[in-house]
């Protein structure tokens, strides 16, 4: 940006990122598809679609064109709240740009139609040809240093390491041979499905590694009950999280970013070496050691392979990583996958095949997606829309960030527009009751003009003080399993004014009682 790149930010709130933007498009929560489709229609009607790229590299354009036809700029404005002229300008700017990129985070994916949201954005990149070239593309920004690495290693219910589909018989056969076993052909359960399985009793034992579902998942009261109802809960952690407190067995692990050897993969698919910099606390064990010991005691002696040995096994099984020896990772300071052999420099961007003559591989499909809006919308009883997110200095449920002080950290608040605050007679710091159909909590308000009337915002950073997820809805996307953290209807009522001065002492409520 300092070198002149223009930034358009689409967000219901005028966030600090939006304040850097050349244009902020303050959409209604959950109206991303309406915006993308209206932009797509405008690009087509203005003659700015990349016809040659569409013909060369894509499929399904005609169906897409027909599907976006109803999304005129006026319809776009009605559905998103963003003035038609601004949608038009954004569409033209994106389509005309020499290079343009769409980046997103959880604002796109924490919806019940998460996959459709992503597909709508992919449609825009296919429509304009902003994909498969340097400086272009669609880019989900990762929220943690190694989210990508988790996926790389196959920590997904439907993938083997290196994003190889479990339904891919050749791939599975390779793993079968190497592991001397039979990998089941069925997809596993995602987190949402696991919770449902716990509800039905199909799933009665759970092994949790480095996750705090007791506080991070939507409708936390319900999740808490499910975890308590398990026959056996094992948690492998570096902190005694609320989930770990519920566990039958806690396995204290080393911190993977400073006490263990291995690799991480960052948001641009760059695999980098991680080295143990400090000795772990006495009882903490290396995670590889824990897993190998577990295997041995379950009757499979894997020995105790080093991180590099595990990595080299992966390289032998997953072509994406085949060329990434530890020596090369070290010499090059990291390599972006795919990297199929040891002479390969790595791949700075994906999908270049779409531009090849003739095209490499299958055509990239347009998808037909329609605007639906959030599952729950405000009504007379619950007149506010609550959207949740993150704040700069905190991390998810605070397991990793609450242990140190930050001058920016204010504790949890209900962020509310100045107009609504004035209407409810609230000033900064006043306590309010916030209630949804699922739960109820107390929080101090933060009056923030980043919000507009009718929209309130909270985070899940301080679940011990303000268990935000007792409010959120357990709706989720059937395709990805992601929960709709971004939208639920709530009611906001001023709490008794006299307690407002004693926020710190009053709010912590360590028991999660449904209803209050």
């Amino acid at each position: 940006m300092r070198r002149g790149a223009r930034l358009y930010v689409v967000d219901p709130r005028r966030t600090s990122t939006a304040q850097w933007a050349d244009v902020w498009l303050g959409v209604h929560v959950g109206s991303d598809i309406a915006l993308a489709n209206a932009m797509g229609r405008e690009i087509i009607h203005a003659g700015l679609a990349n016809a040659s790229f569409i013909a060369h590299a894509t499929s399904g354009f005609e169906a897409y064109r027909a599907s976006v036809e109803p999304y005129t700029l006026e319809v776009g404005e009605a559905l998103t709240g963003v003035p038609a002229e601004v949608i038009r300008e954004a569409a033209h700017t994106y389509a005309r740009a020499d290079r343009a990129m769409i980046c997103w985070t959880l604002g796109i994916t924490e919806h019940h139609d998460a996959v459709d949201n992503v597909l709508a954005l992919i449609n825009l990149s296919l429509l304009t040809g902003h994909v498969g070239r340097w400086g272009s593309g669609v880019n989900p920004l990762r929220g943690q240093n190694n989210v990508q690495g988790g996926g790389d290693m196959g920590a997904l219910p439907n993938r083997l390491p290196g994003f190889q589909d479990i339904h891919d018989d050749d791939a599975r056969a390779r793993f079968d041979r190497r592991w001397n076993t039979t990998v089941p052909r069925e997809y596993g359960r995602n987190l949402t499905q696991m919770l449902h399985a716990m509800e039905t009793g199909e799933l009665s034992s759970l092994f949790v590694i480095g996750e705090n579902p007791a506080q991070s998942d939507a409708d936390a009261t319900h999740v808490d009950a499910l975890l308590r109802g398990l026959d056996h809960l094992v948690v492998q952690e570096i902190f005694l999280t609320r989930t770990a407190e519920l566990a039958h067995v806690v396995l204290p692990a080393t911190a993977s970013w400073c006490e263990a050897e291995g690799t991480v993969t960052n948001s641009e698919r760059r695999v980098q070496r991680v080295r143990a910099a400090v000795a772990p606390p006495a009882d903490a064990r290396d995670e590889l050691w824990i897993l190998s010991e577990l295997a041995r005691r379950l009757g499979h002696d894997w020995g105790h392979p080093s991180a590099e040995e595990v990595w080299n096994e992966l390289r032998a099984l997953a072509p994406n990583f085949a060329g990434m020896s530890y020596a090369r990772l070290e010499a090059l300071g990291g390599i972006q996958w795919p990297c199929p052999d040891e002479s390969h420099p790595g791949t700075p961007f994906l999908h270049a095949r779409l531009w090849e003559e003739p095209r490499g591989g299958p055509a990239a499909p347009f998808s037909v997606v329609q605007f639906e809006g959030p599952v729950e919308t405000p009504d007379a009883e619950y007149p506010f829309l609550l959207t949740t997110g993150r704040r700069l200095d905190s991390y998810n449920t605070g397991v990793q960030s609450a242990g140190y002080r930050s001058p920016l950290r204010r504790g949890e608040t209900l962020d509310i527009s100045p107009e609504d605050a004035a209407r409810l007679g609230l000033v900064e710091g006043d306590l309010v009751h916030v209630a949804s159909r699922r739960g109820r909590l107390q929080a101090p308000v933060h009056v923030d003009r980043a919000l507009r009337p009718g929209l309130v915002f909270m985070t899940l950073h301080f679940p011990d003080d303000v268990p935000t997820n007792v409010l959120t809805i357990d709706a989720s996307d059937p395709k990805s399993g992601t929960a709709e953290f971004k939208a639920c209807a709530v009611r906001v009522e001023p709490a008794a004014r006299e307690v407002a001065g004693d926020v710190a002492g009053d709010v912590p409520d360590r028991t999660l009682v449904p209803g209050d």
Partner: protein
Amino acid sequence: MDIKLRGVEPTDDERAAVDALLGAPSSSWELATVARARDASDLHVAHGGHAQRARRHLLLPALHAVQDRVGWISEGALDYICARLDVPPADAWGVATFYALFATAPRPKRVLHVCDDIACKCRGADALAAACEAQLGAPWHPPEGESVAHDPDALVWMRSPCLGLCDQAPAVLASEAGDPPRERLIGHATLASIVGECAWQEDDGASRLAIPQRGEPGLALLARVGVVDPESLDAYRASGGYEGLRRALELGADGVLRELAESGLVGRGGAAFPTARKWEAVARAAARPHYLVCNADESEPGTFKDRVLLEGDPFALVEAMTIAAVATGCEQGYVYVRGEYPLAQRRLERAIAQATAHGLLGDDVMGRGVRVHIEVRKGAGAYICGEETALFNSLEGLRGEPRSKPPFPVQAGLFGKPTVVNNVETLCNVPLILARGGAAFAQVGTPQSTGTKLYCVSGCVQHPGVYEAPFGITLRELLARAGGPLPGRTVRAVLVGGAAGSFVRGDELDVPLSIEGTRAAGTTVGSGVVMVVDDTVPLEPILARIAAFFRDESCGQCVPCRVGTVRQEEALHRLARDASPDARSRELAILADVGVAMRDASICGLGQTAYAAVESAIARLRLFETEPR
């Protein structure tokens, strides 16, 4: 930018002052608080980013707007400016507090800035300050604590560094905030002339333009000063004005550069760099756009020649800058005028407006399809902004801290683009060179220092003032023209080149005032300061004043200067208290040590020359070898 504002409202006056400069805000996002109802478009759209941040250079004018209207810059005003320009308040606070003319605490609207710098000190400034103290109380200083009773209509006074009115010492700048504000430089100031209503009368500068050489034949730079109406374009043209630009447009850029090279013109700001080489470098630079900057931030103590040119012949500078723009491919020029020169600023703005109205500036200069725009920007009381890269930062809305060189301005100057930056006097030579030819220009002066030079003669002489003389004139001849020392006194020392220059003794007056002549004599022409100290003036307080000046004006960016200027002043104060041989040798060693560190390790010329005058007083005047009086 994700700036954190404090939710303080500006007053109506403050808002009006800022809006008059920036226009009305386009949405509620440009307000510091939710002061007005937000409409649907506010709630769903905000424009900003590059377009808004590109207006950062308006920060200094915006701060001026508030200061000029209200008399000080409140938190609410600062917040409002920050919201309008997308500047973090801490950043803007750093800028506002950088400049001496801005008050960031409640201050009355009417302030007298009483010069107590060297030349004025020689001519009664201390007595005037004492009289002010008796009549108006102690000098104003920012109130301490939160809620201080504040009478906006009181008259207060402050001490000031050199106001550039040394020939009419003692000098005072009277400023009154309001709409419009009133500002006036007052020469030969007395208590009566500064506390009464007369201090606020319209200033025509007439007395200041009655220069000693007024109307003399053979003057070049000063030919029109005090003779030709400085507010009339017709009068300027009738006296030969715009012949230079006409010839420049005929010659084209290359022709202008040839004439300039032939003239041998070197910069008059002190560094004596060949102007043609500077211009050629910018003309050839591939990066675009090119910028033109005139350094009119004349604040070297004892210097006032540029003020005389700006007040007395402003069209000459406008014409010169237009020629420079044509020669170097600049479409936008800035004149950065010292904040203490209100009349100079007004006259220049008037001249630019008239020139624009008559097609001598603007989108189509003289019908030749050349585009040149010039804008006046006002400094706010910071000596360091006379350093060219500090001046760029100041123009860009940053603290006026010098940049490391390289890159040099011709490579990456204002807004990071190739920039021509010249002093007022240097530029005013250009129309003369074009009109008369470079070769003719080079006939005057010495072979290595061509043309004439303006000398600012002040202090203990009969007729202080700006004098134009060919390079090479000796100090003795120059002082003779100024009538010599005051009756019955003898010249003890002459400070040549200003606070950053050096002293010469009364028996060294045969030094020729040329670049090479002064260099051979171990001194410098500098900005042309010739300040005479006679045997009635004690030198130690003058050295202390110079040291205090540098300590105060150091921007604080680099350690050698920030710390060194303080240590130097402390050592001089200790010397004043204890002149025993032991103390002398100890303090002189410290001064020399600190002086070398400042000269060798400072980023810019301020620190590099902060020891020069003190060093020359020690080495040439042998100041601390005899018992101090």
